[in-house]
C-alpha cells in the first residue's frame, strides 16, 4: 500500500499549520494515493473543508447530502473520537486527525 504525504504550502495570507489528516486507505483514490494530507483550520469542519478544497472528489466519501459527516465516517482527533461535536470540534496546531470508516465486514 502506498504511503505518501502531501505537503501543501499555505497560500498568501494563510498562516501555516501543522494539522495532519491520516486518510483511510479506502479513500486514497480521492487523494492521489496520499496517505497523509496537511490542512489548515481551527475546527474539524474547517480542516475537512480544506481537505475537500485540495481534493474535491473526497467530499462524496465523507459527507452526506445534508452536509453532516456520513453515518459510517468517524474522525479521531489525536486519540479521541470527535463524536458528537464532530465538525464543530476545535482543532489545535499540531493535532493529528484520522479518518476512520466503520466497516466491520460482517
Amino acid at each position, binding site marked *: 500500500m502506498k504511503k505518501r504525504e502531501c505537503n501543501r504550502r499555505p497560500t498568501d495570507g494563510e498562516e501555516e499549520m501543522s494539522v495532519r489528516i491520516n486518510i483511510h486507505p479506502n479513500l486514497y483514490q480521492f487523494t492521489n494515493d496520499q496517505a497523509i494530507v496537511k490542512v489548515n483550520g481551527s475546527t474539524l469542519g474547517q480542516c475537512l473543508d480544506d481537505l475537500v478544497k485540495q481534493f474535491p472528489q473526497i467530499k462524496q466519501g465523507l459527507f452526506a447530502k445534508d452536509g453532516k459527516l456520513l453515518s459510517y465516517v468517524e474522525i479521531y482527533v489525536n486519540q479521541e473520537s470527535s463524536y458528537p461535536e464532530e465538525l464543530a470540534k476545535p482543532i489545535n496546531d499540531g493535532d493529528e486527525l484520522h479518518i476512520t470508516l466503520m*466497516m466491520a*465486514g460482517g
Partner: protein
Amino acid sequence: MELKQKALFVNLSTGTVEKKVLRETLRRKFLGGRGIDAYILYSYIKPGIDPLGPENVLSVGAGFLVGSGMPCGSRTHIGAKSPLTGLFGSANMGGDFAPEMRYAGYDHIVITGKAKNPVYLWIKDDDVEIRDAQTLWGKNTWETEQLIHEMDGDQEERVMCIGQAGENLVRYACVISPPKNAGGRTGMGAVMGSKNLKAIAVRGTKGLPVYDPKKLLDLRAELTHRILKSKAMIACGTYGTMFIFSTANTAGQIRVRNFQLNQMVNGQDLEPETFHENYSAGPVACVSCPIHCRHKYVVPLGEYKGTITEGPEYTYLGAFGTEVDNPRLDVVLTAGHLSNLYGLDVLEYGSLLSWAMELYEKGLITKEDTGGIALEWGDPDIIMGMIEKVAKREGFGDILAEGPERAIKKLGEDTRYYNINIKGLSGLHSDERSVPSFALGIGVSTRGADHLRSRPALDLLNLPKKVLENLYQFEVVNNYQQYETKGKMIGWHEENYAVSDSTGICKTISTFFSPHLFMFKDYARMVSEVTGLRITEEEIKDIGRRIYTLERLFNIREGASRKDDYLPERFYVEPTTTGQEINRGKVIEREKYDMMLDEYYDYHGWDREGRPTPETLKKIGLENVEGWKLL
C-alpha cells in the same frame, strides 16, 4: 446473587429431570453461557459419537449477566456436537429467552437422550414437564410458538423452537425464538430435531436477586451513557447491522456470485438507506438493549405478504442478495422471513445456493442434477423457493440440506474447488482476500468459517496506532492489508468475544465495532459489581483463554488439527477483480498465512500443530480436564 442458579438436566429417553446448583468454582472458570456450555459439552459428550444420535448433548445456556439489567444482557447460547461439522457446535441468539430462563431459576438446560415421540419441554419456575408435541410437528416456528401459547394458556412464556428444517434433520437447521431470534450456526436445530424436541417453553416469575442494587443502577446508567456516545452505535440504532454494507461493498469486500466477484455494482437497492426509507416500520430491541439494532418490516412478497416481522440483519444482504447476485431488497426481506419460519441458517443456505448456481453456470451440474430447475443467478423464485425445498428435503434441496462436505461428495469432487467452507461450515458473504486478519479469523475459528468468533473490525477502521496499542497491549501493524501482528490480534479478539458470549452481553457493544466499547476490564467490573463474584481483569482474560482452549480441545479430540485451519483454495489462487483499486488483485499469500498461523498459536500457547502445550493447560487450569468432576 446468581450463584444459586441451577442447571436443569432433562433426559428425554427416560423422562427424568434433575436440578443441580452451578458451583462457584465453575463460575470462576467459565462464567456462564458459552463458557459453561463448553465445559458441559466437553465433559458429557464422548468423542466420536453421532451428532444426530441420542448420545449427543444439547446445552442451552444463559450468560452470567443476562437479565441483570446490564446493557444488552440478553444472549442465549446453544451448544452440542455439530451435525454439520462434527466438531464443537455453537449458536447464539438475542431476544428474551435467556432472561426468562434465569427468572425461572435456571442458567443452563441440558438435554440428553431422545424422546419416543415429538415433545416440548415446559418450564414454569420449579415445575418442569415433558409435554406431547405431536400436534406441533410439521408446523413452522411462528405457528409452533402460537400453538404452545394456546395449549399452555400463557402468552407470556418464551419459546425457542425448530421449524420443519430441524424436524427433517437439515444439518444447518437453526433454533428460532420467534419472531426472528436465531441460534443460527452449526445445526443446533437439527440436534433438537434428532431428539424429537420441538421446543422449549419457559416462564419465570422469580426474578434475580441483586448483589448491590444501587451499584447496579449506577453502573447501568454509566455504561448506557457510554454506549450511546459511540457513533457506531448511533448508526447501528438507525440502520441496524446493515449500516456497514455500503462501505464493505464499495471497498470490494463482499462475496458476489458465490466467490467470483467482490463487489456488487448494482447493489444500490441493498443499501441500508433504502431499507430505512422504504421498508422499516420502526426499531425494536432485545431485552436491556439501548441501541435497537433491529427493525420491524412488512413482508413484501409471496404467501406471507403483509405479515409484520423483524430484521433484517446485515447477513441477509449477502445470503439472499450479493452471493446469489440478487439486487432486489424485497426478495431479500421475504427470503429472510421464510428462513426464519422454516428454521434455516441464513448464512449456510446463501453460501450453498450460490455455490450450486456457480456449478450450474459452469456446467458442473445440470437440470438432471437439480430436478429440472435452472439455477440462474438472481432468480427470485429460486432464492425464495429453494428454502422450502431444503427445509423439506425435497429434490435438489435434499442435497443442499446435507451441508457443504456431504453435498460435495454427492455432486463430485470436481465441485469442491468452488465451495467456500472451513471445517465443514460455510463462509458468510464477506470477502476476506484483502484483509488477512479476517481471513485468519475464519480459518481458525472453533466453529468453522465464521466471523463472530474473532472478527477484528478495528483492523479495518484506520484508527490511530496508539489507540490500538493501548487496547491490545502489544505492538500492532496498523494496516489492514498486512499480515504481521494479526495472529496476536485474532487471539485477543477470540478471548474477548468468548468472555462476551459467556456473560451474555451482546458483542455489538464490544470491541467488535469500536475501541471504546466493552472489553476485559469492563466485563470484570460488571461481573464483580453485579454478581458479587470478585474477578479481576487478569482473571477474566484467563477465562476467555480457557474457554477458547477448551473448545479447541473438543475439536482436537474429534480429530481436528492444523490442517483444518486453512482457507479454501480459491483464497490463495484467485485474485480479487473488483472494488476499490487497493483491494484489487488480492489473494491470501500462503507463506504469510502460515506465519500468521504460527503467531496465532504462539499467542494462545499452542504448539505448531495447534495443540495446547502442557504448560499452557496448567497455566489456565485445564491440566486435569479429562478427570473433571461432573456437575
